C-alpha cells in the first residue's frame, strides 16, 4: 500500500478507537551498492526497507507501535497495540503531539540517486585508482559505490503534515597495503561519485595506509597528544550523548545542572547546525515535527544549552531546541544533534604540532563502543598515529592506547586547529572538528 492509503487507514482506525491525539511517522530507505574484489565486481545489491510508527496519547501517556507489514488490517492492529502500550506506561512526564512551528526552512531538492550502471562503473574506477596509487595495494582491498535515498512523512492529529526526501551517493574504500609480512589498512568515505573525487579518495586512503607501514610501538608514559581532525570528531561523536537533556534528567550525564557554567577551555565552541553546508543530509523538522534550528551548545567554554525535545524541555521549563530524533521509523523519540561541530581555532596544524613539541599525533582510534563510557566520561582507546619530535611529524606508531576522561579533556584542550572536517553520515546526525592539542595524556604502549 502507498503512504497516502496507509495514512487514511490509520486515521480511520484511530477515529474508530476514539484516539484524538496521535502521530504517524513513516520512513522508507532505498539503498543500492556495487562492491569489487581485485579488479572485478564482487556483487551488487539493492535493499528497500522501511515501515510506519504510530504513537498516541491515551490517559496522558504515550504508547508506541510500529510495523513493516504495510497492509490495511495491520494498520488497525497497529493502533490497537499502541493504545494498549500507552495504558502500561508509568512515566509521568507530560507528553505532546506538536501543533506545528511558526515557520520551517524550505526542504532542499534531493540529489538524484545514482543508477546501478553508475555504481558499478564508479566502484571499478575506484578499485583501479586504488591499485594504481601504489604497488603495495593488495587483495582484500574493497571499493564500494553506494546510493541511499530516505523518504520521511510525519503526519499528526493536529493537521501537521511534513515530508523530507534526501539522497546521498558515496564512495567507500578499504585499502589494504602489504610490504614483507606486514599489512596496513585504511578506510575512508567520500560523498561523491565524480571521477576526480574517486581519484582523490583512492590517493588519500592508500597514502594513509602506506604511511603506517613500518609502524613501531611507543613506551608507556604521559605524552602531549594532537588528535587529528577525524579523531577529534570521533571523540565528540562518542560523547555527544552527554549533551542530551534526557540523559541529564535521567542522571546519566554529568552535565546535568551545568547550563551556564564553564565546562571547557575558552578555545572550545561547539555549534549544532541542522543546515550546515558540509553535512550530506539536512532536515527542516525534527522527529516530533518541530522546526530545526542552529544553536551554540558550548560558547567559549561555557555550556549554553543542552539538546531538548518537547518532553524534556517541558520538564526543564525551557523551549525545545528541536533535537527530537528517531534512528529508524521504529525507534522511540530520542535526542540527537544535527551537524555537531567544534568550531575552528586560530592555529594551523603545523603550528599545533609545534606547540606539542614532543608527543603523538593520533590519526586512528578504534573500539569507542566498548572503550568509552559516556556515563563516567572515561575512555581508554586503541590508537595509531605518528611520533611528534621537535614539533614535526616523525615515524608511524601503532598498538598503543590513549586514556582519559571526556569532561577533563574538554577543559584541558590547549589549542584548536583551523582544519575543520565534517564526517560522512547516512542520517541527519554528523560531527565535525579540527585537530586539537591535549597535553599530558596517559599512553600505554610497550
Amino acid at each position, binding site marked *: 500500500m502507498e503512504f497516502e492509503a496507509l495514512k487514511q487507514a490509520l486515521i480511520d482506525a484511530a477515529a474508530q478507537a476514539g484516539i484524538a491525539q496521535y502521530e504517524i511517522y513513516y520512513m522508507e530507505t532505498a539503498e543500492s551498492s556495487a562492491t569489487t574484489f581485485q579488479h572485478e565486481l564482487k556483487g551488487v545489491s539493492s535493499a528497500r526497507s522501511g515501515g510506519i510508527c504510530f504513537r498516541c496519547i491515551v490517559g496522558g501517556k504515550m504508547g508506541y507501535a510500529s510495523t513493516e507489514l504495510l497492509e490495511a488490517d495491520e494498520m488497525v492492529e497497529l493502533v490497537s497495540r499502541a493504545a494498549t502500550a500507552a495504558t502500561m506506561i508509568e512515566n509521568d512526564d507530560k507528553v505532546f503531539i506538536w501543533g506545528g512551528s511558526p515557520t520551517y526552512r524550505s526542504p532542499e531538492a534531493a540529489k538524484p540517486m545514482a543508477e546501478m550502471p553508475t555504481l558499478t562503473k564508479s566502484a571499478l574506477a575506484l578499485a583501479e585508482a586504488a591499485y594504481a596509487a601504489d604497488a603495495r595495494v593488495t587483495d582484500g582491498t574493497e571499493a564500494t559505490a553506494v546510493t541511499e535515498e530516505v523518504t520521511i512523512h510525519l503526519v499528526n492529529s493536529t493537521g501537521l503534515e511534513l515530508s523530507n526526501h534526501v539522497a546521498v551517493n558515496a564512495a567507500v574504500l578499504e585499502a589494504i597495503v602489504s610490504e614483507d609480512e606486514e599489512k596496513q589498512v585504511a578506510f575512508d568515505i567520500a560523498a561523491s561519485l565524480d571521477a576526480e573525487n574517486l581519484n582523490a579518495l583512492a590517493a588519500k586512503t592508500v597514502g594513509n595506509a602506506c604511511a603506517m607501514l613500518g609502524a613501531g610501538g611507543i613506551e608507556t608514559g604521559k605524552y602531549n597528544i594532537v588528535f587529528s581532525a577525524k579523531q577529534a570528531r570521533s571523540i565528540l561523536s562518542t560523547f555527544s550523548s552527554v549533551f542530551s537533556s534526557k540523559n541529564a534528567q*535521567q542522571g546519566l550525564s554529568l552535565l546535568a545542572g551545568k547550563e551556564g557554567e564553564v565546562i571547557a577551555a575558552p578555545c572550545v565552541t561547539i555549534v549544532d547546525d541542522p543546515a550546515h553546508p558540509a553535512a550530506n543530509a539536512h532536515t527542516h523538522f525534527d522527529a516530533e515535527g518541530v522546526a530545526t534550528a542552529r544553536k551554540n551548545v558550548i560558547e567559549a567554554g561555557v555550556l549554553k544549552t543542552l539538546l531538548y525535545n518537547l518532553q524534556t524541555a517541558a520538564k526543564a521549563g525551557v523551549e525545545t531546541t528541536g533535537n527530537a530524533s528517531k534512528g529508524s521509523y521504529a525507534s522511540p523519540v530520542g535526542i540527537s544533534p544535527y551537524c555537531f561541530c567544534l568550531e575552528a581555532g586560530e592555529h594551523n596544524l603545523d603550528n599545533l604540532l609545534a606547540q606539542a613539541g614532543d608527543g603523538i599525533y593520533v590519526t586512528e582510534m578504534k573500539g569507542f563502543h566498548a572503550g568509552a563510557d559516556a556515563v563516567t566520561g572515561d575512555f581508554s582507546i586503541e590508537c595509531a598515529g605518528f611520533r611528534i619530535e621537535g614539533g614535526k611529524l616523525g615515524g608511524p606508531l601503532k598498538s598503543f592506547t590513549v586514556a582519559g576522561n571526556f569532561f577533563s579533556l574538554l577543559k584541558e584542550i590547549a589549542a584548536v586547529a583551523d582544519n575543520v572536517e565534517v564526517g560522512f553520515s547516512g542520517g541527519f546526525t554528523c560531527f565535525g572538528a579540527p585537530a586539537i592539542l591535549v597535553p599530558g595524556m596517559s599512553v600505554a604502549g610497550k
Partner: protein
Amino acid sequence: MLNQSLVAEVLGRVMRGGADFAELYLERTKNHVIEYVGGKIERIDANLLSGVGIRAFCGLRSVSASTTDISRAGLLACAAQVGDACAEFAAAINAPADIILTERRFGDIHPVMIVPGDAQTGRKIELLRTGCTAAKEHDGRISQVKGYLLDVDHQILVANSDGLFCEDRQIRTRMAVTAVASKDGENQSGTCSPGRRMGLEVFDLFDPVEIGRHAAAQAITNLGAGYCPAGVMPVAIENGFGGVIFHEACGHSLEATSVAVGASQFAGKLGQKIAGDKVTAIDDGTIPNAWGSINIDDEGTPAQRNVLIENGVLKSYMIDKLNGRRMGMASTGNARRQGYSYEPTSRMTNTFIDNGPDRNEDIIASIEYGLYAKEMGGGSVNPATGAFNFAVREGYIIRNGKICEPVRGASLIGTGSEIIQNIDMVGQNLDRGQGMCGSSSGSIPTDVGQPLIRVSQITVGGR
C-alpha cells in the same frame, strides 16, 4: 509463510537471468521491548519486521535485492530485479526451467516453554521491575537504574534453486539492567545482561534479583576503584564474557568473509600451529537454547559444531556458501544475517575456548603482578591486521599471586595472531556470555565463552 509454488515461481524468475543459484529468504519478526528508567516503565514497544531478500550467484559474483512488499507482484518484481542484474554478469541467459522444491524439516533443538508474546506483557513488566528494584535497593549510592526486557520471535523461510524449502522459528529473551553509582560528582556504572534462545522460562535460570544485584555491585566496585595502571603485563581473564578476547582476537579473522578474499591474518594457515598448545576453540551453533544457537543457518544449512583450533592447530574456518565457492570449501552452517535487508555472510554462533589443563587457583597464583579481568565489555578488530581492542568492565590488580584492589577504565589491545600464542594457561570453569555481534551482515546474537585463562603478556590501556 509463503506457498511453495509461489516461491518456486520467484526462484525460476531469478534463474532466467543466467544465475547458477538463486535463494529466497523471508522474514517475519516480532520484537517486544519494555524499558524501565528510574523506578517507572518508560516505554513498551511492539515492532513487526516483515520482508524478503532475494539473492543469486553467477559464479563468484552475487546479486541481491530486498523489499517489504511480499505480495506476489512485489516478490516477482524483486526477483526480476535480481535476475535482470544477473544478465549483466552471466555467460548466457538460462532457458526457463521448473524449480522443484522439497520441504525439509530440521526439528527444533531449542524448546521454548513460555512464548513471550503480547499476552505476557504484564508478567514481563513484573520480572523487569523485580530486577531493577533489586539493583536500586542494593546500595544507597545507586543513583539510577535503567533496564530493558527484550523478546524476539523471529520466523524465517529459506528456499533455493537446489530445491531446498525450509522454515525456522527462533525465540530469544534477554534482560539487561544497568546501575549507576554516584559519589562526589563522579558516576560509575555496572551492567548485567543474560539472555537465551528461550522464552520467559529463562528467568528460572537467571533470577531477576540476581541480575539487578550483579549490575549494582559492579557499579559500587568501580565507584571505589582507582584507574588501572598502564603498561604490558600478564592478565588473567575470567570465564563467560571474557571469551570476547577470542571473538575479537581470532574469531572474526576465521570467518570466510575475510579469509576468502585473503584479507585475514589466518588465511592459508589450515593445519598450522597458530595458538598456544592449551588452546582448543570451538564454534557450536547446536548448543540447546544458547543465545547464539540456530537450527539452520540463514542459507538453510543445519547448524554444526566446528572445532576451529585444536591444541593450537588451525582446523577449520567458519564458511557460508558464497565465500565457500571462492575457497573451494563447503558451508559450515555459519551463514547469518540480521534480517531480510542484509546479505548473509559467515558469522560466529556460540564461539568459545574449551576447558584446559590448568587449575584456576594456579592461574591466579602464577601472576606476581598483573591484572585480573573479572568482567569484560565489548571490543573490535580489524581482521586484516589483527589489531584488536576490548574493554575491561571490572578489573583487579593481582599482586604476589593474590587478587587485590579493584581498578577501572582499562582496555586490552594487541594483535590477534600474537595474543593467541600468548594464551599459556587455560582453566576449567568454561562458561559463556551473551553479546550482539556487529559486522557486514548486521547485528546478530552470539555467545562468547572460555574458562579462566592467562595471557602471558598484553598491553593494558590504563593511566
